[in-house]
C-alpha cells in the first residue's frame, strides 16, 4: 500500500506544472547547474523559537502526529503492528516528523499481589518526539551542501531543493532524527512549521495538542515556563521531574526543543549523555595528517638513504 502511494506521488511530481515556464533541454540543464549557486538575501533575525514538551501531561492521543502529517502533506507510512505498546509509528522518518512514544512501566508483582502495602509503581510514560533543533546541531555542521541552515528563528531547517542526499546529517545526528527519503533521495525532518511561523502561526502539532503538552514560543519564555513547571511538580510530590536539553552540557549544546521527563532519558529512547561528534574532529585531523606524514617521511628517508 505504501509503495503504491510512493509510485503515485512520483507520477504526480513528474507531471508538468502549469506554472513551470517552457524550457528547452539546454536551458533546463544550465538551470540545473547554476540554480544552487544563486544565494538570496538572508531574512532578518527574529527571536529564537522552540518547543517545550511536558511529557507528564501527554495522553498519547497522537493528534500532533496527525496534524504534522496533514499540514506538511506527508504521505502515510501504512499501518503496521510494531508490538511495542500503542506505538505503531516506530520511529521518526523522512515522512514522520512527530512520533509519540509509549512506555509501559508495570511491575509483574503488583499486578498479581494486590495485598501488598507498597504503593503500586505502575504508570504509562508518553513522549511526543521530534527534532531537537540543537543550537550547535551536528547535522548542520556536517552538511556539505549548505542545505541545512539555521533560519531566522534559530531553528534547524533543511532546504529540500539543495539537499543532494549525501546522508552526512543522518550519520551525525545523535538523536536519530534525520532520515533520507526513498522517494527523491533527500533528507527530511521537522521544520518547526517554518511556513506557519513566517505567517505568525504556531506549529500544527502545538496547535492540535489537546493537553498543552507541546508548548511553542520564544525559547527564553519556554525555559522560564519549564522551570516553574518542574518546581511545581517537585512541590506536588514528583521529585524525579527534570528538564532535558534546556541547558548546555559539557558535551552538547542546549536544544531549542526540550523536554520535561520523569525517568532516565534512555527510557524514552533519548541518549543519556548526548555527545557532539565535532568535539573530536580536530584531534582526528591531527592523527590523520600525522599518520600520512609519518608514512611520507619513512618513504623519503629510504629514498635518500638508498639514492647514493
Amino acid at each position, binding site marked *: 500500500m505504501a509503495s503504491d502511494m510512493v509510485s503515485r506521488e512520483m507520477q504526480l511530481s513528474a507531471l508538468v506544472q502549469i506554472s513551470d515556464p517552457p524550457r528547452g533541454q539546454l536551458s533546463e540543464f544550465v538551470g*540545473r547547474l547554476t540554480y*544552487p*549557486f544563486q544565494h538570496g538575501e538572508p531574512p532578518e533575525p527574529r527571536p529564537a523559537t522552540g518547543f517545550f514538551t511536558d511529557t507528564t501531561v501527554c495522553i498519547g492521543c497522537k493528534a500532533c502526529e496527525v496534524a504534522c502529517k496533514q499540514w506538511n502533506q506527508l504521505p502515510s507510512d501504512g499501518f*503496521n503492528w*510494531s508490538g*511495542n*505498546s500503542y506505538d505503531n509509528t*516506530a*520511529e521518526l522518518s523522512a515522512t514522520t516528523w512527530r512520533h509519540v*512514544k509509549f*512506555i*509501559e*512501566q*508495570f*511491575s*509483574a508483582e503488583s*499486578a498479581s499481589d494486590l495485598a501488598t502495602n507498597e504503593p503500586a509503581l505502575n504508570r504509562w510514560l508518553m513522549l511526543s518526539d521530534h527534532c531537537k533543533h540543537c543550537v550547535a546541531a*551536528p547535522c548542520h555542521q*556536517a552538511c*556539505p*551542501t*549548505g*542545505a541545512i541552515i539555521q533560519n531566522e528563528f534559530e531553528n534547524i531547517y533543511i532546504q529540500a531543493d*539543495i*539537499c*543532494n*542526499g549525501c*546522508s*552526512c546529517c*543522518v*550519520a551525525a545526528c545523535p538523536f*536519530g532524527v*534525520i*532520515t*533520507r527519503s526513498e522517494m*527523491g*533521495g533527500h533528507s527530511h525532518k521537522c521544520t518547526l512549521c517554518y511556513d506557519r511561523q513566517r505567517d505568525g502561526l504556531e506549529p500544527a502539532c502545538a496547535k492540535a495538542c489537546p493537553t498543552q503538552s507541546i508548548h511553542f514560543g520564544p525559547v527564553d519564555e519556554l525555559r522560564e515556563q519549564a522551570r516553574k513547571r518542574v518546581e511545581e511538580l517537585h512541590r506536588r510530590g514528583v521529585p524525579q521531574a527534570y528538564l532535558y536539553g534546556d541547558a548546555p552540557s559539557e558535551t552538547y549544546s542546549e536544544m531549542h526543543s526540550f523536554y520535561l521527563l520523569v*525517568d532516565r532519558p534512555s527510557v*524514552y*529512547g*533519548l541518549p543519556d549523555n548526548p*555527545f557532539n*561528534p565535532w568535539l*573530536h574532529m580536530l584531534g*582526528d*585531523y591531527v*592523527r*590523520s*595528517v600525522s*599518520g*600520512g606524514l609519518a*608514512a*611520507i617521511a*619513512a*618513504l*623519503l628517508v*629510504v*629514498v635518500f638513504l*638508498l*639514492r647514493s
Partner: protein
Amino acid sequence: MNASNQSGYLNLPVTKVPGWYGTIAWDALLNGMATGLFLAAAVSELAAPGVFTPVAKIAYPAALALLLADLGLLVFDLGDPLRFHHMLRVFKPGSPMSLGTWCLTIFSLPLTAAAALSLLAEIGFDFERARMLAVVVGLLPGFGAAAYKGVLLSTNAQPGWKDARWLGGYLTNSAILMGCSELLVLSALIKHAEATAMLRTAFVVLLVLNAIPLGLLFRNLQRAHARLYTREQQWRVGALIFAAGTLIPLGLTLLNGGLLCIFGSVIFLLPASWVIRFVFVKIPHTTPLEVRGSAAAEQVAAADVTTMRANPVRMHQLR
C-alpha cells in the same frame, strides 16, 4: 521501577544508520589507492627524479583512472546523484565531507594535467616543467583528499565509528602504503631495477609502520567489536587481517625481489586493506537492532509477540 519484561525504547539504539554500505568500503579503498599512488610517485620523483621519473609517468595516469572510479562511486552513493555539484556551492572546513569534496575537486585538476602531460611526453611532446609544476601543485590537495576520509567516518554519532579516533591515522598511512605497493608493481613491470630496489625497502618499512595505526584503531574499536562478535570471531578476523595484510606481504617482499613475489605481496595487501575498511563500515549496520528499517521492525515485532506469548502477565496487562 522498570519492570524487566517491559517493552519500550531502553535497549533500542538511538541513532539511524546512514545507509553507507559496501560502496563506501570500495570508495575508501580506491581513494587510498589513487591518492596514495599519486603521493608516493610525486614524493619519490621530487626526491630522486633521475630514478623515479619513468615510473612516475605511468603512475599519474593510473592514479587518475583510480580517482575517476572513486568519484563515480561517490556520486553513485548520493541520494540524488544529479545534485553532486551542490557540494561545491559552499566551502565549510568544519564539514569533513565539504573539505574532502573540495580537496578531491582541486586535486583532480593537477592530477589530470600531470597524467595528460606524462602521456604526451610518451609520444614526444615533452613539457617537463609544466608536468613537474602540476605534480607539486597536486601535493597538498592530494594529501587533503587522502586525509579527510577517516575524519569523515569518525566524526559522527554512529556506534563504533564515533570511537575510531585512529581511523584517519590508519587510512592516510595505509594510502601511502598502498601507493608505494602500486608504484613498486609498476617499476617491476617496466623492469626498472633501481626504483624497484628502493621501493621494495620502502614497502617493507611502511608495512611495519602501518601496523601501528592499525593496532591503535583496533584498540579503539575493541568495545564495538565485542558487542557484535564473539572473542573467537574477533581473533579469527584479526589474525586473517594481520596475516594477509602484513605478514604475508612482508614475507614475500623479503623473500625475493622478483615480479612474482612483488605481485603476490600486493595481491594480499589490497584485499586485506579492503577487508579492514569493510569490517569498519559494517559496524553500525551490523548491530541487529541498529537497522531500523521495516524488515528490522517486523523482526522486533515478531520477537516481542514471542516474548508476550511466553509471558501471560504481560499479555494480561496489554489487554
